[in-house]
């Protein structure tokens, strides 16, 4: 196997069926009346909105939270709303975010991006409480594994239906489900600041990132073995390094063990208990 024939393709109708059933089962298991998705107009949230709508037989709220003039995002989010024929609840973060930026002297892109992500999380969970709707997150496996998300921001959710799909797999599934092509084709961006793109910021294309992650995580290949397949050693090293540094975001906060049964360590229950 070399870098060109690493194959992440899935049978899309089966994947779609599993995810649809998952959303339906989780929402009913926890006795929510429906779901709510923060829709940015990007690929992940568009796909999750379409699948959730089907899974929940229309019992879905979509929430659009731009910062100022959002360019193509409004157009694309509106397009999803019109496909689903449900209202797009909009809350512009500009005013409140600018106030915080100014008063708290927040002047770097990364800090501003984090503030925006956590403001969105706040509003999203409030809609969840108002509507008794489960927060359906839109994180994918690529960004989760390398920690390309804001802790307790965009990664905060009740369930992550596409959390085990790499970005390129999300793209394939989106094509199958019928996400409009302009949404599929635009450069992925967390929209933390103007002109930002994921691939520019991470420094690698999703095509390559996903293959390296797949080989390292799913196929359990070692660094040397992946490099031998034709990937640049610097890139492989960087990706593996990112996965290690991201682990803290993927777990419950570390608890200092003092008792005989400690949360996260030996207090062992799955979340389904009690439902």
């Amino acid at each position: 196997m070399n870098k060109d024939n690493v194959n992440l393709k899935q049978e899309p109708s089966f994947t779609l069926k599993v995810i649809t059933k998952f959303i339906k089962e989780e929402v009913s298991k926890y006795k929510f009346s429906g779901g709510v998705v923060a829709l940015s107009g990007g690929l992940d949230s568009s796909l999750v909105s379409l699948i959730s709508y089907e899974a929940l037989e229309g019992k879905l709220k979509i929430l659009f939270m731009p910062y100022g003039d959002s360019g193509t995002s409004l157009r694309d989010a509106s397009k999803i709303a019109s496909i689903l024929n449900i209202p797009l609840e909009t809350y512009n973060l500009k005013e409140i975010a600018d106030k915080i930026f100014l008063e708290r002297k927040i002047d770097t892109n990364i800090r501003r991006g984090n503030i925006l992500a956590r403001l969105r999380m706040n509003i999203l969970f409030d809609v969840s409480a108002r509507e008794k709707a489960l927060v359906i997150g839109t994180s994918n496996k690529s960004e989760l594994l390398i920690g390309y998300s804001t802790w307790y921001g965009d990664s905060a959710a009740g369930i992550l239906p596409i959390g085990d799909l790499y970005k390129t797999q999300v793209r394939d599934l989106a094509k199958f489900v019928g996400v409009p092509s302009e949404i599929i084709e635009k450069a992925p961006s967390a929209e933390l600041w103007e002109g930002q793109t994921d691939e520019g910021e991470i420094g690698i294309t999703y095509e390559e990132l996903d293959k390296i992650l797949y080989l390292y995580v799913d196929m359990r290949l070692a660094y040397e073995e992946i490099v031998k397949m034709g990937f640049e050693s610097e890139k492989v090293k960087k990706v593996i390094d990112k996965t290690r540094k991201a682990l803290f975001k993927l777990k419950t906060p570390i608890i200092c063990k003092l008792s005989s049964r400690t949360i996260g360590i030996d207090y062992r229950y799955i979340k389904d208990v009690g439902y």
Partner: protein
Amino acid sequence: MIISIAQIKPFFGNLEKNIEKHLSYISLAKKNEADLIIFPEMSLTGYYLKDLVPSLAIGPDFSKINSIIEASLDIDIVVSFPERDNSFNFYISAAYLKGGRIAHIHRKVYPPINGMFDDLKDFRRGEEINVFSSKSIGCGMLICRDMWHPEAVTSLALSGAKLIIVPSAVPLRSISQTGPEIKDFIERSVRFYAEHFALYFVFVNRVGFEEGICFYGGSVAAGPSGEIVLSMSLLEEEIKFFELKEREIERRVSILPLQFEERKDLLKGRFYE
């Protein structure tokens, strides 16, 4: 012999609701004149019990499931649950109920502990694999991971089993361009075992999710020529039936009498005492 497979989604951690569900499928099977109904692994409780095991375990007194045991007066039943013995050990077990009593219990002999599996943290290993009589043919049970070990299947087959029942809780893992890879692996194994040992091999999987883990269904049974005699849907709860034809076993054995050639003596002292 009509065999029904109840590919169910158990309620997690709720024995009462699961007993109700079992009884309703049992009555449906009876209406369809089935002789045997088989439920999947941990059908009475759900699978990822972890710290719930002690409070949900059944045995050594089985009165908690009396209503199901009694239902076996009219139809044979295979159910599965966490079992506690009288020394307070826990096992993943499957019981063959017949004539209003427990005819046989199999304790999972290969409870896995790897990746998403934690069985060995909570359960001990079963120590035996035995053949017993079901209706008029020799029968053996394995649970889930047990069937991935050819020596477990071989042991039952060489001891005379002509019906092997495998209640399972197999989760979905990778999906390829042709669908769930695990399904192909299971089907290959089921057909291989059935054909080589000239027996009916019945894999009974569950459906539903437990904390994101999807049990994919796809229960499948193969007959003595390796033919698929029943294939169930992916992901859906359902009950289906097939007929076990003893004549087909007899015919297959006369065409290819492998079982008369078996050389257990060759194994002696090599792998086993």
